[in-house]
């Protein structure tokens, strides 16, 4: 009987202990609640804590928490429909207020959903798509584009400097979300746009535009190839003509000089007796006569005269 009594006492002591003592984890902060009414300050120092056995403890996370929105389809100012996925970080700063206003985290989440979603929707739909995609320091050197003609696109202004850009847009969303947030005992640390994409139908249009863009670049490359080839061949033709004509000129010069030299030599030699030269040269040309040529001799020419004489004899 004694040991049973001992056991009962031990069990009671344990029960009392578990009702009186509680540990507060490093990650948590707590509020003691007595008959549904919060008592005392927020307890945020971790360790072993004491409370009255009839009091309850409500724990709240002290750390930075993640909020992740649904992917929502929003039209931009330029009427493009895009899918936006935002994410945010928040923490419970005032557990007392938090407890009374939203009770728990899931309550807080639904409120955050409403607020952040609507702010993101407002901001995105009043902003151009370029502003959402590009940052403040957007800069494009049109000269250095792969194809300068791409800069003249009807739908996209490449050089347009964003008024806000991605970072300032996110800062604006955070600011407006904070402003429109009622006192919930939570603090919004930041809101970021995680993903931005086109909806399916726009995506297909963009893809076909990209294809057309690429094809125009490809066509330019081909035409450039043809052009350069023509240029090279033209240069070749020019060089060929230059080389040939220079050679011809030089050859003619050489021949001319030689002819002149020969003329000078002949002149010097034949000038000694021009009359004999004509005679001598005539004889030379007789020698050059070919077969079947006809020789006409004057009846009073020397040859015939001698011939006649010999016949007469």
């Amino acid at each position, binding site marked *: 009987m004694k040991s049973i009594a001992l056991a009962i006492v031990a069990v009671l002591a344990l029960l009392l202990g578990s009702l009186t003592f509680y540990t507060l984890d490093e990650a948590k902060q707590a509020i003691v609640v007595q008959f549904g009414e919060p008592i005392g300050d927020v307890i945020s120092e971790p360790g072993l804590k004491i409370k009255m056995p009839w009091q309850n403890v409500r724990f709240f996370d002290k750390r930075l928490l993640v909020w992740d929105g649904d992917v929502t389809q929003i039209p931009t100012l330029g009427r493009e429909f895009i899918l936006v996925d935002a*994410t945010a970080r928040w923490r419970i700063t005032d557990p007392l207020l938090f407890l009374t206003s939203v009770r728990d985290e899931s309550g807080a989440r639904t409120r955050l959903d409403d607020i952040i979603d609507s702010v993101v929707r407002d901001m995105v739909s009043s902003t151009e*798509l370029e502003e959402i995609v590009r940052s403040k320091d957007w800069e494009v050197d049109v000269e250095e584009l792969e194809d300068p003609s791409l800069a003249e696109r009807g739908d996209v202004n490449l050089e347009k400097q964003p008024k806000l850009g991605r970072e300032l847009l996110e800062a604006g969303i955070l600011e407006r979300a904070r402003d429109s947030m009622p006192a919930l005992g939570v603090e919004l640390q930041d809101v970021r746009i995680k993903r931005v994409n086109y909806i399916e139908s726009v995506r297909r249009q963009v893809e076909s535009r990209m294809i057309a863009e690429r094809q125009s670049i490809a066509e330019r490359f081909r035409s450039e190839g043809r052009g350069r080839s023509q240029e090279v061949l033209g240069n*070749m033709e020019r060089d060929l003509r230059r080389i040939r004509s220079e*050679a011809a000129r030089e050859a003619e010069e050489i021949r001319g000089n030689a002819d002149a030299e020969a003329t000078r030599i*002949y002149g010097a030699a034949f000038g000694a007796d021009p009359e004999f030269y004509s005679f001598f040269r005539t004889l030379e040309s007789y020698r050059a006569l070919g077969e079947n040529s006809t020789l006409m001799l*004057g009846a009073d020419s020397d040859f015939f005269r001698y011939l006649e004489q010999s016949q007469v004899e």
Partner: protein
Amino acid sequence: MIQSVGSSGSTGSGPPDLGDILKKLMSGGSPKKAGMGVTSVVVLALLAWAALSSFYTVQPEQRAVTKRFGEVVGITDPGLHFKIPFGIDEVQLVATERVLKQEFGFRTADTREAGRTTYSSGEFEDESLMLTGDLNMIDVEWVVQYRIADPIKFLYAMREPTRTLRDISESVMRRIVGNMLGSEVLTVGRVEIQQIAGDEIQSIMDRYDAGIRVSTVEMQDVVPPPAVQPAFNEVNEARQERERMINEAQKRVNSEIPNAQGAALRTVAEAEGYATERVNRAEGESVRFSAVLREYREAPEVTRSRLYLETLNEVLPTIGQVLVVQEGQVGPLPLLDVNRNGERRAKGGES
């Protein structure tokens, strides 16, 4: 990467023993004897449980964060360590020395096969598809490597630090890619993007005080969206074709110009040959003429006749027809018609 050791120890061995004890109590036997047995069994069980749960080991790549009554009291290094049992001391193991990795746009599916890693990327298009500054689309896959630099901050600054790192990485990558032209991202921008992304992710994680150190951001496949890829290939082909056309033209140049240069040299050389020949002949003829002239001057009349007749003598055998023309006569008088008669005896006796 995080394991909770204390709580699992407390639920493992206690309650079943208690159940057994109660059953024994109900099933009769001497209460006193049973009481003694119960006490000793309970004490033994408690001792065994205490002994088993007062030690823990920390692996070499890990650090352990120890908490007493929920309050962090320290970090322990690898080795075997003592802790107070019964859930008073709790230990959380964090792999601080390991380089951890997050993949975006693909997942490493299987690394077991010897040395070969397979990847799947098809179903992660949402992660990898993004908009570039010229409002085109691009498919970017990348990897973020990081280490847990501060285990206490890692555990207690944020509730979901790794998920946050994912979100921030995606957000930062999209911001950077959105601030560049698609062609830049595809070609020259990779190193720059890796650099900026690493810095930016780190500074944001520092702002959260998350205890994470980003070591590298590595770009993997960066490609246009699948539907557009053939068009991109076409551009590459066209670029090749351009080079090919230029090369072909150049080839023709290379085959024609040296040839023409050679031909030109030939033309010049031929002209030089002609020149030499012409001058030499002129000189030769001059010398010959001068020599004959010298002799002629000795006896002009005789030499003149001799030359004339000698020449005719040489020429006549090869001549087809000789006509003699007399002044005042109408037609020429054919003198000899040697070839037509096939007769070649036309020589006079005056040689």
